[in-house]
């Protein structure tokens, strides 16, 4: 029944795109030498580039897998706050681990946190609403 329950909003859609501009999640990760080490050096996962050329924009019309994956992680981040599940946490962890897999010398433990950005008046407020437990990178298979 679960897939049919997930299908229903597609068959009877709401189409309320961008009705309100909700707080926006940023995925940040830290690498740790040991499971008990306190995470300190938080880095943004896949920070956006300063500029994107028109040629790149045109190419991404046909080939944009990493950006679409990042948008999926935004959905997972929002789900983790609204309706926390192991699935959303595992999806985020596994994709960070996959991006870091090219650096086998990096510290073996990985944690991530979700920082939500919202506007209050004219100021932007950043608030950490979730932090994962450290996980061993090699165990986070894709």
């Amino acid at each position: 029944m679960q897939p049919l329950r997930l299908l229903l909003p597609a068959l009877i859609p709401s189409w309320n795109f961008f009705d309100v501009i909700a707080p926006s999640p940023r995925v940040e990760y830290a690498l740790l030498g040991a499971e008990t080490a306190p995470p300190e050096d938080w880095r943004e996962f896949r920070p956006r580039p300063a500029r994107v050329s028109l040629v790149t924009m045109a190419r991404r019309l046909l080939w944009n897998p990493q950006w679409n994956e990042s948008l999926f992680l935004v959905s997972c981040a929002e789900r983790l706050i609204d309706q926390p599940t192991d699935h959303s946490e595992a999806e985020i962890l596994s994709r960070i681990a996959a991006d870091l897999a090219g650096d086998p010398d990096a510290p073996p433990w990985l944690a991530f946190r979700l920082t939500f950005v919202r506007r209050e008046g004219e100021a932007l407020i950043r608030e950490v609403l979730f932090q994962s437990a450290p996980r061993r990178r090699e165990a986070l298979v894709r």
Partner: protein
Amino acid sequence: MSFVASVRLTEILLALALIQQSLEHMAGPRRDRATYAVRIALCALVVSGLASPWPLVGLALLSLVILERFQGPYNGGSDRMGLLSLWCVTLAHLLPDARWQHLAFGYLGAQLTLSYFISGAVKVVNPEWRDGRALRDVFRFSAYPVSEGLRAWADRPRVLLAMSWAVMLFELAFPLTLLWRPALIGGLVVAGLFHLANACLFGLNRFFWTWLSVYPAILWLQAQVGRL
């Protein structure tokens, strides 16, 4: 365009859009690749017209597997429109009575119209959209701008106010285009450019291809409205 030709064109365009998405998934986690390889094969069968309508049935069933895999749509609204289109086109083949087939396909065209109208309605009742602040927030801190440079657009409040109203008025007026075919064609060109801009600025390439693939359904629906 006849009902049969409109359904056929919609399913071919949808299959091509799904192939594009599936190829992107083939670059993702290894565990998903078999699923998307099957989807590409089924889409190729849909494009070729072989064994119709069973490849569509296979795609519809596979869509349930993918929904379960990601605990919902992978890419929000674009996947929802793709699912809606897939199930409507499949039902347009499978339902036993021509009237029901027309209803299933007409529902897809109607939902495309609603996708614009409701998007405009939910914005125009929000004072932050009416004064341009919501679109400033999209550029200033949302997850969508594809580069940090685009965030500077938030410092152009007059431009964004004009863009906000242009988007809202277009979306709200879109159903009126069903009354006159040249207006609909013009409306779809403008809508296509809107999706193209969203693809370039916010990386929403899946919206572009998925929404365009449904255009034959609304063109067919408009022809039926024109006969009334």
